[in-house]
């Protein structure tokens, strides 16, 4: 019970977000209309993804400092979950853009930045797959992961603010928080972020366990071969 309480919490939050997200009260705004409900999915997914990537970088640093291969497993699997969220965030954003801006992929610096960010992390996966030796792979991809995160943050959060963007918070548009982010939205939005982060951790945890079981089995195989 001690270990699964957060999974139960995750399921409860996700259901709460889905139900409240679709039938809860939202502010009436021009152009956006009912599509403001996408905040619970699109915006929250991006925030969850950034948090997971930050976590992944922290574990990469931990690996470099301590040299424990488990840290690298965590870093890579959390990054994979984050990429999954990133792709979902792109899709939900695309739906939203289609109905509010009239184009599924408008030429917006933030969108292009997001696509580049996903490319960076896909390159991370490619880099991981091109090594045979486990320690070597862990070391080099950790270095790249830290480097990638340091570039990813400017691409997503700093550069779009310098130019004109359709997204809130860029190019003179105000941020969400300033006026139309009322308490009804807050009540669903913050749980949504936490719920997605927990879901991502759950996905990552399952994959980490599979990896570790495989490793133990491999070791057993090697040992039995020796004997």
């Amino acid at each position, binding site marked *: 019970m001690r270990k699964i309480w957060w999974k139960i919490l995750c399921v409860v939050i996700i259901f709460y977000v889905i139900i409240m997200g679709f039938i809860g009260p939202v502010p009436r705004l021009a152009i956006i209309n009912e599509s403001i409900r996408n905040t619970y999915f699109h915006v929250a997914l991006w925030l969850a993804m950034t948090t997971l990537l930050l976590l992944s970088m922290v574990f990469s640093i931990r690996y470099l400092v301590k040299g424990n291969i488990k840290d690298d497993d965590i870093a890579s699997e959390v990054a994979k979950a984050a990429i999954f969220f990133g792709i979902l965030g792109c899709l939900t954003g695309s739906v939203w853009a289609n109905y509010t801006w009239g184009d599924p992929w408008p030429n917006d610096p933030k969108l292009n930045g997001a696509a580049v960010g996903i*490319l960076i992390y896909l390159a991370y996966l490619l*880099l991981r797959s*091109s*090594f045979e030796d486990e320690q070597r792979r862990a070391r*080099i991809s950790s270095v790249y992961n*830290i480097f990638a995160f340091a*570039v990813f943050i*400017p691409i997503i959060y700093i550069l779009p603010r310098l130019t004109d963007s359709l997204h809130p918070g860029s190019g003179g548009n105000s941020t969400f928080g300033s006026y139309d982010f009322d308490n009804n939205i807050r009540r669903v939005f913050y749980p949504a972020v936490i719920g997605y982060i927990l879901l991502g951790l759950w996905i990552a945890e399952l994959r980490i366990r599979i990896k570790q079981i495989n*490793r133990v089995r491999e070791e057993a195989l*090697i040992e039995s071969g020796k004997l």
Partner: protein
Amino acid sequence: MCLPFAKSFKNLTVLLFPSGFVSYFCSAKRSTEAGKSDAGYITTANRKPKAESRRPAPITLNEIKTLIWKEVTLEWRQKYALSGMLLYVVSTVFVCYLSFNLRRNQLTPIVWNTLFWIILLFTAVNAIAKSFSQERHGRLLYYYNLCSPQAIIISKIIYNSLVMAVLSALGFVFYAFVMGNPVQDNGLFTICILLASTGFASVLTLIAGIASKADNSATLMAVLSFPIILPMLLMTIRLAKNALDGLDWSVSTDEITTLLSIDLIVITLSYLLFPYLWRS
């Protein structure tokens, strides 16, 4: 002025293949192999990065100077590499010129600008990709034994920036010669070229170090570096556009500071991360 350089460099080169070196290399290889086969995954504790424990001595300017001098001499000895890169720039520019096949005045400044920077990007990737892979494994091992990793990465970044500055300056001259020169503010454009060459060099040097550890390093180099270099490329293109239009310098301070800060972040990260990379 040149004498201390030459002397310290001599120490480096004369010792390049000492008799003890081969035996050192073999024993080092054997010991790592033994460590691998003996204990498999469990040896994480003794195989963890030990960059600091190995050489606590701080890096000196002298060390960096010697290393840069070594790079220059190596490059000068095998001239084909540098002249190959020059020829690469010139022929790419010429291919672009012939492919467009336009009268000069039909090429809009935006196309001119973008084309120029893309040519430079590809040149940079090709020129810097070899900075780690051209040296033999044994020799790398020898350098690593001799000097601190920070000195190696800093010297490589400085040297690559110099090479990129030379290449892009020559590239710009030839490009302007063939395609016409719409730049109105040559001073700003020069600053732009300098900033871009340091920026490209600093990003690509670390990526080249990462890619050289893998087998298919040519593909990996492009895949890893293009997305990472993109913000820098976009900023550079915007700054160059300002120079092209001859806008006032105060308009471009934003871009210049952003470029400088990206450079700073990347160089700091390279400095911090390279010690972990070099031993693997």
